[in-house]
């Protein structure tokens, strides 16, 4: 998650993180992977027989975008989507995927030194899906490994495993 290696050693390396909420917990993704953030003002079209954590598809200016419900992806039980719910459109490989989140909080510059490897389970999420945790003064932000979180290959396997 390193952004650039600064020439000036005194200036600390940082990465920009988009911070969002699932329930009350704060999660983050590297801003470089975020295409845009949308309000959910249109219905999501359900796709039968898609993996259970795929909420459906939306029409983003003529493009079909799949929407993943991260809460279901991580097996978290959380309240209904509300007024603050957003879709974060991220680029994973050559695909665009929308992530349903409960709220988008802010964009934060985080020093690389503050990022540590994730423990086996953080806030109920398996370390497999995580890139690390950022420890700030009073906050603990869980950084997602999007490739793993949204991997369609893995998604298919999981789905099959559940069905089988």
């Amino acid at each position, binding site marked *: 998650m390193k952004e650039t290696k600064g020439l000036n050693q005194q200036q600390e390396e940082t990465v920009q993180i988009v911070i969002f909420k699932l329930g009350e917990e704060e999660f983050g993704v590297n801003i470089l992977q975020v295409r845009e953030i949308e309000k959910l003002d249109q219905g999501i079209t359900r*796709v*039968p027989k898609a993996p259970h954590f795929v909420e459906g598809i939306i029409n983003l200016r003529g493009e079909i975008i799949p929407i993943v419900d991260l809460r279901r992806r991580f097996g978290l039980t959380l309240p209904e989507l509300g007024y603050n719910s957003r879709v974060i459109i991220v680029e994973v490989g050559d695909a665009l995927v929308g992530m349903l989140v409960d709220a988008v909080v802010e964009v934060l510059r985080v020093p690389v030194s503050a990022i540590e490897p994730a423990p086996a389970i953080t806030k109920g999420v398996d370390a497999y899906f995580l890139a690390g945790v950022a420890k700030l003064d009073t906050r603990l932000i869980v950084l997602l490994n999007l490739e793993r979180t949204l991997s369609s290959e893995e998604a*298919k396997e999981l789905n099959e495993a559940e069905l089988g």
Partner: protein
Amino acid sequence: MEVSQYLNVFMDECYEHLQVLNQSLLTLEKEPDNAELLNSIFRAAHTLKGASATMGFNKMASVTHAMEDVLSLLRQKELEVTPEIINVLFDALDLLETLAKGIVEGQEENIEVAGVLQSLKKYLVAELTSERQEKEERRKNLQLRYSPDEIDKIKTAVEGGLSLVHLHLTLEKDCLLKGARAFMILRELETQGEIVRTIPTAKELEDEKFDDDFVIGLLTKKPVEVLVQFVEKMLDVKTVKGEVVEDDKLLVERRGAGPSQLSTAAPSAEPQKTSQVKASSSISPTVRVDIKKLDDLMNLVGELVITRSRLEQISMEKGDPLLGETVEQLSRLTLDLRDQVLKTRMVPVDQVFSRFPRLVRDLAKETGKEVELRISGAETELDRTVIDEIVDPLVHILRNSVDHGIEEPALRAQLGKQEQGVIELHAYQAGNQVVISVTDDGRGIDPEKIKTRALERGFLTPEEIEGLEEEEILNLIFLPGFSTSDKVTDVSGRGVGMDVVKTKISALGGVVQVSSVKGEGTTITIRLPLTLAIIQTLIVQLGEDVFAIPTGYIEQTISVARNEIKKLRNQEVAILRGEVIPLIRLQDFLGVPKAKNEEFDELDVVVVRNGERKLGCVVDSLVRQQDVVIKSLGSYLGNIAGIAGATILGNGKIALILDMRAVA
């Protein structure tokens, strides 16, 4: 010269010429005496030589050069068209194709051409003498020959006091615009008498299709010396020789064959044989367009179609007659535009078919069989995205037909069949589908063998097999890893095969079927959609969601009273005109949440057909018929069983397009 910029054009032309060569060589094999054919082969090789030399592809140039030399000997009848020569020419052609590929990959330099060059040059021992002869030949050709009509006319004119003068003109070597110059000279001479004939013809002169000299036959009152002086004064004329020709010493033109062809190609002298080749000259002018541009255009039109539906909906809600009228007109225009764009993307299947005669010929030789490939309907058009994809499946099917279908000649004779087997490749359009069938008159498929094989490989249990219809048994050949040939040959029978064909065709939204009569032959039928981009669908409502069913699969829609639905072995069925049709609740099948007001007395049923099977899909309601642009669900979701894609409706909402093959 900046080469890369011309490379595309060169490659396009290169492939075209290679195709001409391929086809003409195949025909030549059957009609070794067809001089016009030799000419067209020669021309293709010649053009290719010139083009490749200009582009600096020396290997290709040297091969085509050697080919041209051999062909020119053939044209002059100094060599006879023999099967060996044809084979050598085919080898050279294959090499050219390899070179062409090499050029694209930047590997031309590394391709070995010496072998083929040598076998071509074997025929050229008399090369030097033949070159000399060629020159003489050309000079001989510069003798004016007249048609019987013209001779009559000359005779009458000579009786009337005119004389026929032959003027042999040679232009300066460095003369620019020879064609225009020759044209001017002819114009000037027309003031001095009547030009009966020139050699080369006036048209060829104008097109610069001559070396430096040409001969004019002129009926005139003027003495030869005056004419010679008259012409000598003209620009760019190097020498003029004039002679008066007695009317009883006129040469009558030769018809047909021989190197003089080019110079006697005046309309009156057209031999009947050439009609086939000449047809190509009537093709309307074309423009080469990058296919990417057509794809982009198609996408734009797709968006336009969607916006149009949206506008239609708005206009309907507003109810303004003026708006309605305009929208209606816009709709018509949009549809016309869409049809036109679709048409530009259509290419005749001939593009694919044309390579098959060669394939079948080679396969037949390899397997020691005699096979005739009959092609019909090659003009049938398909979207080019589809065309590219059907090559491999068709090649596979043809391989199977030659290898497994057609018997050895001796065996065929024993069976009382013609020794030469026949494979028919037939294409035609049926509605919005294109049907391609491959039929052979070979040994057919033995259902018993398939059963045995299916048991051996453990695809099915004996009980399962007993329950199968003959057609279903035949369709087992599409299972992965199935191969019924007893012997594995080079040509086919490696266990990958028909399943690949099926997968590929299914991916295109098509269907493959097989039918066969043991001992009489096999037919494999492929049905393909005309285009992949836009399809006509029936929009249906299931609970709160709408889905689109491609009309290509729909047989009809019916309304069935609830109490008319029967249960048969735990399966709901409806009886339609005496036919039992199994029903599925599409909603349950797809797992879509149910709407509240469930109970109607009448159920809307969409009867779909997949091959011979029919299935009634119960839906909540039929919404409307609509053309939709297919959009993929994207690489993230990949292929989901039962869903062919999605489309955006007029109101901006998404409707999923059902893949009826997975449902039915």
